[in-house]
């Protein structure tokens, strides 16, 4: 168990910078999710931490000790690769024992430890199988066992669930989490799947090609994204152009909205901003008869008229596309109440869910 610190790390391939001046801290025992689109350099970062490639500049510290000059075999890390996860010419037992044998333990002496981790990943008795005789999910679990059997100071996971189908993915996600908590090993998990990162991580970072956009607890990133990029990358959301009025309201195409307290702390009256409203935070109600006939009826604050444009059934909930004034919004509602396209509705937008992000021109 170690805390990991990364200090102004840079890496370029040929002349293309992949990582530039990156700083990151991971606390000891933390499950840290590193989320980013493909090509953002997250796998490069993982390989740098593992020591498989060398940084051009910067430092990597395990518990305050620089490991930049330590070869990968002496960093005491466990790593689960994205594909080709096992040695095909070795049995499950030999695969798992490999790390111990490289450290001078005989195969026989390694067996108790091997059996322990096999039990941990719920594959007891699979000792003599070859990888080709295992399913993808089982191979992944053996790879996890092989990575943790050496009692690593750091566990690195590279898209551990990306090659599994949906059901297996859920099982594996739970297993990963329980193994990590049981062992308490500091873990960095790289993924492009936001669900994976949000559900697994204690803390997470969103990495784009220009660097880390935001670090924090998953709920923090989801509820209070630092910028438009993060907001759009995590979950589905509505970004509405607006102008700040005072410190607690904003003018927008769907009317004047009260915003979350302190949401506009960094902006000033009159600034152009983006209002961030999550699809599932918008309430939708049928417009009553009085609304049908008297369009001038005043609605309470943070309410707006809208018309349903289309709907997509998503099992358990429905994604609606609605139009309010000139603005199209996405709204997620439970499927026990359905609206047909063309229906007039009233949207309720709670002020505590209206976030403010710096405007498109970088206010």
């Amino acid at each position: 168990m170690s805390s990991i610190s990364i200090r102004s790390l840079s890496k370029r391939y040929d002349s293309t910078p992949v990582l530039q001046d990156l700083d990151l801290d991971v606390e000891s025992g933390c499950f840290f999710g590193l989320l980013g689109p493909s090509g953002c350099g997250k796998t490069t970062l993982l390989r740098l931490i593992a020591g498989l490639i060398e940084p051009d500049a910067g430092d990597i510290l395990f518990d305050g000790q620089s490991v930049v000059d330590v070869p990968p075999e002496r960093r005491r890390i466990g790593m689960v690769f994205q594909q080709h996860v096992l040695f095909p010419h070795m049995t499950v037992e030999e695969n798992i024992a490999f790390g111990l044998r490289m450290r001078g333990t005989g195969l026989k002496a390694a067996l108790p430890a091997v059996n322990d981790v096999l039990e941990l990943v719920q594959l007891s008795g699979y000792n003599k199988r070859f990888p080709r005789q295992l399913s993808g999910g089982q191979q992944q679990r053996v790879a996890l066992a092989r990575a943790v059997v050496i009692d690593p100071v750091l566990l690195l996971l590279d898209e551990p669930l990306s090659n599994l189908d949906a059901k297996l993915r859920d099982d594996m996600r739970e297993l990963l989490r329980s193994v990590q908590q049981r062992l308490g090993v500091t873990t960095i998990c790289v993924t492009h799947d936001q669900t994976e990162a949000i559900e697994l991580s204690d803390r997470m970072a969103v990495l784009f090609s220009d660097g880390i956009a935001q670090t924090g607890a998953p709920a923090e990133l989801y509820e209070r994204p630092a910028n438009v990029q993060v907001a759009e990358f995590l979950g589905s959301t509505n970004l509405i152009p607006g102008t700040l009025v005072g410190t607690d309201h904003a003018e927008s195409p769907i009317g004047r909205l009260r915003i979350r307290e302190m949401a506009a702390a960094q902006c000033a009256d009159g600034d152009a901003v983006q209002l961030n409203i999550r699809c599932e935070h918008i309430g939708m109600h049928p417009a009553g008869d009085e609304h049908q006939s008297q369009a001038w009826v005043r609605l309470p604050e943070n309410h707006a008229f809208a018309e349903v444009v289309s709907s997509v059934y998503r099992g358990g909930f429905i994604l609606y596309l609605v139009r309010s004034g000139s603005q199209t919004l996405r709204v997620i509602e439970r499927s026990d109440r359905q609206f047909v396209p063309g229906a007039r509705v009233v949207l309720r937008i709670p002020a505590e869910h209206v976030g403010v992000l710096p405007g498109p021109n970088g206010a």
Partner: protein
Amino acid sequence: MKRSVLSSRMVLTIAALLFGLPFLPLVVASFSFRWHWPDLLPGAWLWDARGTTPFPVGWDYLFSPISGLGPAFLNTMTIGVATSLLAAFIALPAAYTLARHRFRGKEAVEFFLLVPVIVPQIAVGIGMLLLFIRLGIARTYTGIVLAHLVPTLPYSVRILTSVFQNLDPDYEEQARTLGASRMQAFRRVVLPMVLPGLVTALLFGFLISANVFLLTFLISGGRLETLPTMLFQFIESGAPLDATTAGLVLIVSAPGLVFLVLSDLLTGDPVAIGRTTLVQDAKQ
């Protein structure tokens, strides 16, 4: 899917016929005593004429000590095994580097490795002979093995390069993260995984060496006889195909057959070699 399997089997059958049929008259000829045009079969068989000739003919001659077939066969084997082992030993690190690393002048190195295939062997051979005489290794096994490396190495390097290219670097990196040094990762993970390719390279190296005539002829100066140089004497005499020559041709072809059988036994793929080189060609 099924159709392509069927047609590939047909192609294989036709190829086997085209390759195998010419051997049929050789087999017949090797057992004939007199076989004149236009007879479909020999007028007299070897076993009919046995004892009527002043000296043994055909297989009888080949397997008698005076033919020198035994030593020639042993020489071919020894030189072939030594050449293929040495070639693989040299080619292994070269191929690994070519497959895994990019470096300045890589194309030049690749071209340089191919040069022996392009330059006429007679030119290489005479040059080597002069050099070897000065070094005192002409007419020795060492000299012949070194000469045989010239046509063998390009193929060994090419085969092994494609083998390494097909092996995902992931495996070595996994070994490294699990605590293996570079050497341990190579020995415990890479080598076992490329073993079929390595066997192929060894067999192919042997096959090339067993078929070299010109270089052996020049460097051995007639002192060391191999199967190809032995066969050459019979062709030189200009006589029509007699039983002895036909038998010898069959024996010289034997390494190829042994190669196919061994390749099948060791890699489970009788045409493994064709596959690896094809993969390589497809990539270029």
